[in-house]
């Protein structure tokens, strides 16, 4: 006699749905970012004065802008810039902030008090205002934008790491590490770090989405990527005067921003879910 198993146990999903969808979207976008010329029908800055501000058509799927540039091609080429912003603006804050925060959280005492005041001082200012102020001092451009974001952003990772380490360092296994005579550095980076890294990775993913929005905002304000570089924020800034007459100039870069942000967020959620179940 055979026993029918419930259908659910037969098809066990190995990866959570958000990770599959988000990761898939991210992979596709990464492909566009690495090989934009392979996908874009036109060069991002080739002018066609015979086709200014054309609505979407077979020749120009996303239409053309006020210089006759193909909007689709510019959106695709912007992936290189915006994905670069997502990673470069956040990778240093992630590693630096996490390490520094973990050390401060473990040390506690004076170091933590001073850091706490620094956090208070920085979160008093809206993030965007602070970054704009720093870029204004350093001068516009992508490199200066990375510096400005890095100077402020690491604090948020560090704050999260401090909080996580403060919990973990009181647990028995950390105490056991001390009882085994391991050095503080060894306990923090070898033993505590794997236990605190999940929320930080999730925050990193969200932060990459925020970095794209920030990069676009600064591009829009003329402080990030400089025209004629194809960048979504720059594109939307260029399009703002033609919002009523040529909606396609701003809507398609806007959709690209939304999709990029969504894929990072979904990936973050999925990563969190897989790392939680691994415990």
């Amino acid at each position, binding site marked *: 006699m055979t026993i029918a198993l419930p259908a659910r146990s037969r098809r066990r999903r190995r990866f959570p749905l958000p990770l599959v969808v988000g990761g898939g979207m991210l992979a596709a976008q990464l492909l566009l970012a690495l090989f934009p010329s392979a996908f874009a029908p036109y060069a991002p800055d080739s002018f066609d004065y015979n086709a200014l501000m054309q609505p979407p058509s077979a020749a120009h799927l996303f239409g053309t802008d006020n210089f006759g540039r193909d909007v689709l091609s510019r959106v695709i080429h912007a992936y290189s810039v915006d994905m670069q912003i997502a990673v470069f603006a956040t990778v240093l804050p992630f590693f630096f902030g996490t390490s520094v925060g973990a050390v401060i959280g473990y040390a506690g*005492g004076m170091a933590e008090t001073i850091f706490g005041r620094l956090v208070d001082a920085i979160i008093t200012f809206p993030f965007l205002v602070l970054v704009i102020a720093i870029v204004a001092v350093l001068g516009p451009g992508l490199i200066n934008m990375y510096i400005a974001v890095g100077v402020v952003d690491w604090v948020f990772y560090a704050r999260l790491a401090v909080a996580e380490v403060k919990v973990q360092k009181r*647990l*028995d*296994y950390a*105490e*056991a*590490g*001390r*009882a*085994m*005579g*391991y*050095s503080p550095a*060894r306990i923090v980076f*070898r*033993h505590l770090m*794997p*236990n605190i890294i999940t929320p930080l990775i999730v925050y990193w993913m969200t932060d990459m989405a925020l970095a794209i929005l920030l990069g676009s905002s600064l591009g829009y304000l003329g402080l990030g990527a400089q025209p004629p570089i194809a960048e979504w924020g720059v594109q939307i800034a260029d399009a703002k005067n033609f919002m009523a007459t040529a909606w396609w100039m701003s809507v398609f870069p806007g959709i690209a921003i939304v999709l990029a942000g969504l894929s990072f967020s979904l990936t973050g959620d999925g990563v969190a879910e897989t790392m939680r179940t*691994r*415990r």
Partner: protein
Amino acid sequence: MTGGLSLEVTNLSTTFETPLGAVTAVDGVSFDVRPGEVLGLVGESGSGKSVTLRSLIGLIHPPGKVSGRVIWNGQDLLSLPSGRLARVRGGEIAMIFQEPMTALNPVLTVGLQIEENLRAHTALDRGQRRARAVELFDLVGIPDAKRRLENYPHQFSGGMRQRVMIAIALASNPRLLLADEPTTALDVTIQDQILKLILSLRDELGMGVVLVTHDLGVVAATCDRVAVMYAGRIVETGTVVDIFDGPRHAYTRGLLSSVPRGGAERAPLLAIEGTPPALSALPPGCAFGPRCSFATDACRDARPGLLTIAPDRQVACLHHDAVAANRGQVA
């Protein structure tokens, strides 16, 4: 058994500064542990057993302060610089914890956690560390060592995890094992296995053991000598036989008569009246006075000191003769 080291603790005190004033969790405790000997540290919850153990190897965090002397291998552990102390911890003196569920790192394989100890305290290379880890798993009785080393703590049962914990603690051949209620979280059959394991390892490796427990059954089965703690002080010490045969402190007597005995004729189970005093509000004189049926005015005047009444036998009670004589009386 090679020439082992002994631990001499003199006048150990641990005080925590709290907003409500200083709390002395361990108050002038002195004892020693000889090589190959199992010393039991017993007492109720909050009597300072675990804090004593942690104070020995500097695991007390601010605002806690430790004073006194802990002489090990000719040096005072309390005044040792942190680098040298780190070499003693885990290398010469190892500690195992009460909760095998939480004392292992949940996200590292157990093999890696054993290797961490070996990396910190030995000069073994990668292959040798691996071999030693397998050897340790065999030693503590975990079958299929090679495969099990790749597992994470959540893949082990409670008893197996405590074995893993012991394997990690023993990795660098410690001369002294501090065991903080190693069997409290385990069920009785596993308790017995773990205790037997600790004893056989003591015999094999010639190490001293300090066993903190509130379980007198465990003490009777494993220890050579016992120190009974109450409200941060040692109130009675002696060999297991002496203490179980003729307790001379009313508190020890109370502890012993509150343990159910199997086999013998049924007798009423005697509880000690009242609860232990708060460490921040100790009664004047003998801390056990208010719960003690032998107490007199003299007990309330001054704290009785620890008297040596025979070799290896000390008691901190003014009326220890009366306690010893009055075997039937309720404590």
